[in-house]
Every structure is written in structure tokens, then in C-alpha cells.
């Protein structure tokens, strides 16, 4: 599972490219960076240049990466289709080569086409961090979800290392629109390799049987209550109304069957940790009360996101930090 030689070291294109040891190293680095003073941290990537190339808007992920880069002292350039700084009709390859010529040493890419980060990494030879590609993956999200889980379940020290059995005995239920979710894919391909049991939950149209191929040992449970009863971690995914309509799924039926509300949580999973990658729609896939409850770690996810992405940037730019 090592990253093939055709991609620059430090790239993170798919969670599958990381060995368990790589994941552990990233967590250790994250932990080390978190203990540093702001001044100390700001010296690590001083003078280094990072480009953020965003073909899709994403306040959360973009801001997280941007703040992470800045906190490490790096300069960032944002190129997004919103600011129309992406040349009309220019290929991803040429945009990447232009950024490289302008001095970018790593590119963080968000793109609506699955696999786009692979193209960019191949054509530029630069380390590329996948900040979400189509329906494919969102590997930094899976890593921050992992750190959030570990911190809650095992404490700060427990979030410093992982091995193949760290999550033994932990069942993670991922519920919602699995088909279109890059977060679900990255998590489902990471967590079982650390010993977790992963149950995917949702209606057939949003969760086809093919999902079982993501990783050995993944299970599908269509009944949300049954799934929740087994959960130590309940990860909810955003549901888009338009998507339900397109698939002829009734919104009210969906809410009745799959919304994580306080009653369901109390009855089926009173101890479970609640996660959501955001942006969440209160009242749809999750009840506001649940999102704000002590069982929810949704805000912590955001904080861990900043920390993990800092580590990924340090790794991408090949900077060694003693951990």
C-alpha cells in the first residue's frame, strides 16, 4: 500500500495510499504540532509556498487547510472558480503547471471529478493533497475523524499512535448517502485496517451492495436502529434534498427511517459518539439537539481538522519535525 513512485512523496490522493504505519506517523506528527507554541509552529514552513486549487466551493475544508498552512508560516495562494481565477477552458494539467511555475511546492485540490488529484499529481510531479474529489475520497477528513474518535475514546495520548488493532471492539456506523459520499469511502477504507468494525447504513438507492467492496469485513445494515444498537461511533452524512428527489425517495420517509434524533440516540445508542463531517442540515439527517449534545464531537472535528491538515502539509513539504 505504498504510494507508487509516479506520485511525489507526501502526496495524499487516497486513504488507501497510507499504510497503518503512515497513519500512525501522521497522528504522532499531529500530536507533536499541537503541543508547540504558535511561534514555534509558525517557523516550520516559513517561506514555503502552497497553492489551494478549488474547483468546488468549500468554506470548511478550504479555510481549514488555509489556516493550517498559515499557522505553519507558509504562504498560500487560493485559486478557485468562484474568484474566476481559473482560466476558462484551461486544462487541470496546465493550471497545475502554471501554479508550479509560479513557485507552488504543493497543491491542495478540491475538484468535482473523481480522480482529479491523480491527474494533477501525475502531470505536475508536485505533492498533491486531495481535499475532496467527486464522489471518490476525502482522506484528510477520514484522518481527522480518526483523531476525533481516538481522542474521545482513548484520550489525548491514545490519539498519538495506531496499529492494526487499535480500534478492536469499536463499531462505527456510517449512515446516509453513502453512494455520493467521499467521506464515507475514505472512512470505510481506513477504519477496518485499524481493527474497527464498520457498518454502513442507508436505503438501497443511497447504499448499493457494491459498497461491500470498499474493504474486507464491511457490513450493510438497512435498519438504522439495529445498526445504532451496535455503535460506539455514529457518523452521520449530509443528505441533499435534490438528491433524494432525484432518486424518488420521500423526504419524510427518509427522516423517519434515518434521522439521528434524541429519542433514537437515547434508546439505541446512549453512549455512542456522534460525528458529522459537515456541513450538516439540522432537522434533516440529524436533529439539532443531538448535534449540540455532549455525545456530539462535531465541533471537535473542526479543531482536529486544523491539526491533522497541519501535519499533512508538513509531510507534503518534506519537513522533518522531531516527534
Amino acid at each position, binding site marked *: 500500500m505504498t504510494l*507508487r513512485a509516479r506520485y511525489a512523496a507526501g502526496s495524499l*490522493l*487516497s486513504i488507501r495510499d497510507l499504510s497503518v504505519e503512515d497513519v500512525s506517523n501522521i497522528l504522532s506528527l499531529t500530536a507533536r504540532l499541537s503541543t508547540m507554541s504558535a511561534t514555534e509552529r509558525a517557523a516550520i514552513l516559513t517561506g514555503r509556498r502552497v497553492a489551494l486549487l478549488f474547483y468546488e466551493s468549500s468554506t470548511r475544508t478550504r479555510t481549514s487547510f488555509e489556516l493550517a498552512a498559515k499557522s505553519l508560516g507558509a504562504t498560500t495562494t487560493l485559486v478557485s472558480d468562484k474568484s474566476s481565477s481559473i482560466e476558462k477552458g484551461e*486544462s*487541470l*494539467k496546465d493550471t497545475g503547471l502554471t501554479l508550479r511555475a509560479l513557485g507552488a511546492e504543493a497543491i491542495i485540490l478540491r*475538484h468535482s*471529478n*473523481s*480522480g*482529479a488529484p*491523480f*491527474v494533477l499529481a501525475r*502531470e505536475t510531479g508536485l505533492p498533491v493533497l486531495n481535499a475532496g*474529489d*467527486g*464522489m*471518490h*475520497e476525502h482522506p484528510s477528513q477520514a484522518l481527522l475523524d480518526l483523531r476525533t474518535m481516538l481522542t474521545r475514546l482513548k484520550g489525548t495520548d491514545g490519539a498519538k499512535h495506531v496499529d492494526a488493532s487499535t480500534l478492536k471492539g469499536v463499531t462505527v456506523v456510517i449512515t446516509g448517502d453513502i*453512494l455520493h459520499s*467521499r467521506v464515507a*469511502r475514505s472512512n470505510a*477504507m481506513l477504519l477496518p485496517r485499524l481493527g474497527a468494525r464498520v457498518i454502513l447504513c442507508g436505503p438501497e438507492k443511497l447504499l*448499493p451492495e*457494491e*459498497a*461491500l*467492496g*470498499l474493504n474486507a469485513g464491511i457490513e450493510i445494515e438497512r435498519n438504522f436502529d439495529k445498526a445504532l444498537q451496535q455503535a460506539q461511533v455514529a457518523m452521520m452524512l449530509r443528505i441533499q434534498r435534490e438528491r433524494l428527489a432525484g432518486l424518488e425517495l420521500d423526504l419524510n420517509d427518509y427522516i423517519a427511517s434515518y434521522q439521528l434524533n434524541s429519542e433514537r440516540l437515547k434508546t439505541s445508542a446512549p453512549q455512542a459518539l456522534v460525528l458529522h463531517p459537515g456541513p450538516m442540515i439540522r432537522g434533516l439527517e440529524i436533529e439539532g439537539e443531538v448535534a449540540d449534545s455532549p455525545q456530539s464531537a462535531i465541533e471537535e472535528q473542526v479543531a482536529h481538522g486544523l491539526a491533522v491538515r497541519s501535519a499533512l502539509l508538513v509531510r507534503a513539504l518534506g519537513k522533518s519535525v522531531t516527534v
Partner: protein
Amino acid sequence: MSDLLILNGRLIDPANGIDGERDLLVRDGRVAAVEAPGALKNIAAAETIDATGQVVAPGLIDVHVHLREPGQTYKETIATGTAAAAAGGFTSVIAMPNTVPVNDTVAKLEWMLDAARRSAVKLFAMPAATLGSMGVTLTDFEALRAAGAVGFTDDGKPVLEDHVMRAALVAAARAEVPISQHAEDTRLTGGCSMNAGQVAFRLGLRGMTVEAEARIVERDIRLLREIEATEGLRPHLHVQHVSTARAMEAIRAAKREGLHVTCEVAPHHFTLTDEAIGDYDTHAKMNPPLRVEADRAAMVASLLDGTADCIATDHAPHAAHEKEQEFERAPNGITGLETSLGLALRVLHREQGLSLSRIIALMSAAPAAIAGLAGRGSLSMGHFADVVLFDAGSEWRYDAAKTLSRSRNTPFDGAEMLGKVRATICEGRVVYRG
């Protein structure tokens, strides 16, 4: 044309049941004699080729190539595409009509077949079945047939509407040529870029289902049955690039029923599965897509048991900049003329034990029969001297950088091949030496 003698080879001519040591004499571009070794030794020929250790076979025929001219000559021209064909052992190719503009009139067909295009091998064409391949109005089958059309197809797209396909089959039956169908129910494949299944799910790509291919094949077979029953005609349906076990099973049943159905299988579909896409390798993107192992195995089985009539490449060149894109944006298709024989011999002969004679038949006599290419596909006396010489035992690796095609979009760069083409002779002229 001066005489050419090919001596000491192992001559394999499936149509005539020959597999043995024979010498071959070519005169005026035609086969003048096939004799036991020594019988032709007193003939003084202008050129003699010593084929010791080589197979001498009818030149290969590809019923499905995209030569991109007119309109997309940055991808390929008739001259470069047919040069690649010659290098692959082909002496005849049939150009698909999805050029720019679409080949749908006599004038366009004649332009394409004109000697000024400098085709290296014998060029045939299947013009569009419908004007502009828009699937609405049939082209003038009779006039196009008279101008040399060997069949009709809207390849790249299916003839989708039932009544249009029915009319096309009827008109083609009257013109005594096949309708070559790209079997894809495009109502089911919008936004899809690969095979539906676990690999597509993992890669986050929308997949084309088996059903999308099978539904058109099954519909077309039903139309054949109806036309035979009601019109007293016997239309010939040729199914292009079959990729799924289910569609092949429908073809097998239709053949058993006695309907006139033929089909082709492409080398990539009997060699690779959708796993070859790896990390979004656009050189493994084509339509129909690479399928799962069970489908690949079914394509092999169909070639072994004769359900698949022939091998065709679907040679589809694209420029590097078009393939260096996001997977979903990159165009479908791969080149195939230079790798077809090498893969057929490696996979079907060495791995599956299919005889050389059967493989040669799948690549010469059978395609000639499907497209009604008179005087081609065998080394019968008086036939065109279309001949390929290859070293059946030589192992080599394909190097896309050395292609004679204008494009290099192949998943087989560096792949192992069996059987090196030593010479390709088209109508008595040596058009390639390897």
C-alpha cells in the same frame, strides 16, 4: 505487378483447411499458386522471401477501426492509421463513419476511399446508418452500397429507436450488407465512464450496467425475428465489441435459433478487466468499458466455442492532451491495431490453447465473410495476395513510443505480446517489414 515468391513457411489458410509447409507464388497482386515445398523452385520471381520458421497466413482484417479522417487528423489520418494496421499484420480495415463530418453520403464515402488518402492497406468503410448518425433518418443505403459500403453503422452511438433500427435492418437486408450495431442503451448510461460494479463504486465513478448493453442486443434480436417472420427478408445483425456475458448469451441463443447474427470481441475485452483502470488510467477507458473477470472469461469462452465470430480492435486513437484529463472528461477509446495479433496469440493461443488456425480464421476469413469482402480472407487461387508473415513463437513487449499511429493511447504500453509480424503484403505489395 512483378512476381513474389514466399518460400519455406508454415502456411495456415483456415478457409482451405491448410496448415503445413507450403510455398506461395504471387502474380499480379493475386495468389497464383500454393504448392508443396520445392514445387515452385524453378519459378524466377522478382522477389523471394524466405519464410523459414514463420507462419504465412491470409492478411488480417479488422472490421472496426476509427481512422479520424476527415476532421480529426490530429488524432490519426487514414495514412497513419493504415500504416499502424500494416504493422499489426492487417491488409484490410473497415473505417467507422464517426468522422467530422460523419460519413453519410456517397461523396464523403468516395472521398474517404480515394487513393489520395494514401491508405497503406485495403480500405473499406461502413457509412452511417442514419444521417449524421443522429438516429432519425436512414442514409441512402442503395447508393452507398453501389459506391462501396460494406455495411452500415452509427458506431459510437447505437441506433436507438426501435422503428429506426427496424427500418435499417430491412434496408440493409435488401442491400445485402450487415447493420453493425454499437449496443448501448444510452438512456441508461448518461454520465457513466466505466463498468458498473465494485471498482466503479470505490473510484466514485458512475458505471454502465450490463443491462445497458444486453437490452439493445436483445431488442435487435427480437427485431430480426420479427422481420424474418413478416418481411420475408433475412437481415444480418453484426454486434460490435461485445463485452458482457449476458449479451453474448443472447447472441448464442439467437444463433441457435437460426437468426443471422454475428459479433466481434475486442482484444482488450478478452485481456483486461475494470481493475486495469487502477488509479484513473484513462488509457483503460473505452466504450463499452472493461468489465469484470466473469465477463472477460465469457469473452474468451465465446471465442473458443465459436459464438464470437471475429476479433476486431475498435482502434480509437486520441491525442495525449485529450487523455491527460480527469477520467470522466477524457474521451473513450484506445489504439489497437498493433497489439491485436500479439494479444490474441498470447491470451487465446498460449494461455487458452486455441489453435493458430482458429485465431487466424477469427482475424481473416471470418471478418471477410461478415463484411462480404470478396476475394479476401483466404489464400485461395486467384484471391488477392493479402498475406501476413509472423513469427508465432517470438515474445516481445509493445512500445507505444514506436507506434506508426499518430496516437499512443493504449493500456498495453510495455505489455507482453506473442508473435511478431515480419511482413505484411497487401495485393502483392510488401506494405510492412518488421
